[in-house]
């Protein structure tokens, strides 16, 4: 529908310049309005933007000199802006040169979408090559070879998909509907399909085909992707992974996490670092862009003519009400349009929260998402989980 008379529709990339308002820093004319933080001229915006990136790294001093950092590059706006920032920061002419060595990891998820985006992936590869940094293309199906039981547990996850259950606890307690779960696992991976016979791609396809809701598909993909990035980066000799998640994206993730019963994982899923989540398995995922908004990224990319490549994902051309994540995205973006400070409020709220079980690491972690366990509800209190199990049991 975007094509009129064969002419390709493309959004205008030239930023809008407002006249008559002054930059809040230097009081020069011709400025950019960015969210709630006032108006800037082009130069001051660049300084402000890269300062935010450096400031968040400074506040969370996890990256040491000469560390190797893998950037999770997807071709999208966020990771492209991050790549551009790093490229600039490593430029010998820069005053404070960044002190780490970067590399790029691109996760190729095309197995999930029957698409003809071969050209686009070529384009992404071209961009990565042009940076001069080492780059790696990792296929999503490789996750199958790494953690075979993750896939199995993925099935369990589907059945009990509202809460991140600790499978061990569940099996011990012999909760009635577990029989149902085991039955389904048997069905999906029946004894004839032994692991050796199935290729990784087949396993992954089978997993995703067996997931019935888009919510669970998106969630499973997100978890698998994080796991793959962390693990692969470790194998390739990196010390950290940089994710491109912005404050807008994190605000969306915070609310969808809450809605999916993953409140306890907020610090790991939306903090600067994902903590001890993948300890022993992979490296830490860091989020240096977490204080920039979507709009700031878009302005930065437009000003710097950063090349981006759009690849379709699970949410592409799906309706708003097709999944919890899509609905939340629509909800947050709608609210932000009317109440611009909502995004930062949500984001800051989550900074002040932590899981109740964080101190007790001995409780172990979930075998699917490696997050903290929040299913030990004790016997002394009324809790939502205990109530849910009771409801299941009496029916």
């Amino acid at each position: 529908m975007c094509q009129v008379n064969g002419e390709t529709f493309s959004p205008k990339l030239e930023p809008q310049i407002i006249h008559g308002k002054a930059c809040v820093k230097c009081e020069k004319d011709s400025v950019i309005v960015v969210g709630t933080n006032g108006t800037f001229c082009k130069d001051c915006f660049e300084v402000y933007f890269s300062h935010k990136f450096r400031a968040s790294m400074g506040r969370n001093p996890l990256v040491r000199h000469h560390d190797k950092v893998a950037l999770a590059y997807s071709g999208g706006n966020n990771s492209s802006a991050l790549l551009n920032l790093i490229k600039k920061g490593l430029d010998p002419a820069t005053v404070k040169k960044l002190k780490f060595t970067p590399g790029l990891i691109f996760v190729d998820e095309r197995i999930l979408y029957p698409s003809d985006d071969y050209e686009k992936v070529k384009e992404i590869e071209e961009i990565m090559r042009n940076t001069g940094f080492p780059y790696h293309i990792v296929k999503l199906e490789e996750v199958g070879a790494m953690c075979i039981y993750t896939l199995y547990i993925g099935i369990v996850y589907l059945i009990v998909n509202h809460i991140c259950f600790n499978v061990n606890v569940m099996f011990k307690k012999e909760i009635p509907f577990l029989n149902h779960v085991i039955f389904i696992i048997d069905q999906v991976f029946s004894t004839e399909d032994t692991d050796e016979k199935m290729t990784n791609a087949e396993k992954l396809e089978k997993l995703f085909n067996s997931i019935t809701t888009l919510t669970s598909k998106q969630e499973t993909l997100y978890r698998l992707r994080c796991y793959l990035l962390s693990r692969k980066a470790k194998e390739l000799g990196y010390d950290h992974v940089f994710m491109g998640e912005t404050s807008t994206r994190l605000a969306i993730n915070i609310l969808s996490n809450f809605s999916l019963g993953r409140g306890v994982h907020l610090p790991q899923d939306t903090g600067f670092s994902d903590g001890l989540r993948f300890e022993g398995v992979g490296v830490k995922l860091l989020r240096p862009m977490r204080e920039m908004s979507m709009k700031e990224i878009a302005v930065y990319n437009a000003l710097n003519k950063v090349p981006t490549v759009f690849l379709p994902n699970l949410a592409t051309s799906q309706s708003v009400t097709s999944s919890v994540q899509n609905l939340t995205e629509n909800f947050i973006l709608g609210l932000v349009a009317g109440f611009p400070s909502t995004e930062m409020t949500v984001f800051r709220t989550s900074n002040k929260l932590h899981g109740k079980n964080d101190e007790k690491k001995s409780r172990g972690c979930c075998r699917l998402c490696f997050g903290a366990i929040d299913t030990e509800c004790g016997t002394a209190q009324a809790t939502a989980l205990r109530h849910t199990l009771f409801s299941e049991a009496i029916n």
Partner: protein
Amino acid sequence: MPIICHVCNDKKALLKRPKTGHALCKECFYWAFESEIHHTIVTGKLFKEGEIVAIGASGGKDSTVLAHTLKVLNERYNYGLDLRLLSIDEGITGYRDDSLETVKRNQQEYDLPLTVLSYETLYGWTMDAIVKKIGKKNNCTFCGVFRRQALDRGAMMLGVNKIATGHNADDIAETILMNILRGDIARLKRCTAIITGDDPSGIPRVKPFKYTYEKEIVAYAYFKKLDYFSTECIYSPDAYRGHARAYLKDLESIRPSTIIDIIHSGEMLSVCQGVKLPSQLKCVRCGYISSNELCKACILLEGLNKGKPKLGIGKTSKVTQQLKLSKSEEASCSGGCNKIKNDL
């Protein structure tokens, strides 16, 4: 072919439970619904034997079902509770007067003593009069703040040990979302508690429906043919809560378990150390718990009585400024009055 009840495997199923997705017959649904409330009451240790419990009754579906189930369970499981109904009359013509009639009918049916307190006797203002002053925006602030205090005052008058309110799972999930969106850490921490009141002088409030879906409450009231009042408040369309409510309803339609999941998320989080929370004080004027020197109800009343109804809705700094001003006025006035007295 009719679907057979999942529990008794005998009768025809009448509804699919929104909570678990199982198809149940009417009798089994009653049984499941009531057992779950009982389970919540027992595991949450909501009541002790011999306590006097006031049920906050508005005549709406939640409180009607609450009064009904608490009475049934109290008899069935011998909680040994002395149940009372406590209603607040906000003074909204065309809404509360009708719903109070429902409460009165319920009182006769369930044979529970009823007390009605009105805003007019407590504060000297009805909601109708307040809305005339403030307009249709922000009036829910007045109603909400006043009702909370009115319930406590009524409960103190009756000498009860606990107040039971009909807040359901949807309400609590909605409040959690609201508090995240507003960044209200202190309330986010408190709103998931099933029993309120760290304050020893306050009367604890309990929420037996904390894990009960709104849909199931409606279904229960419908099948039991309970007499309830189901009109939206005529002054209510409250912008911000409306957003959270619409979002929650959409979430529920995508995945019904989200409501319990949000409560689960809320329960599993606590506030980081070092985050500043408002301290609990006592209002210097009325003695009610408050996070400021003056409680919200007193500030709102002050504004109404001084002809500045917007006081207490905007910034706190303005309130303190205004109060200082009125204090100095009072001082000068009382000085003057004393002078007259002395002269006499």
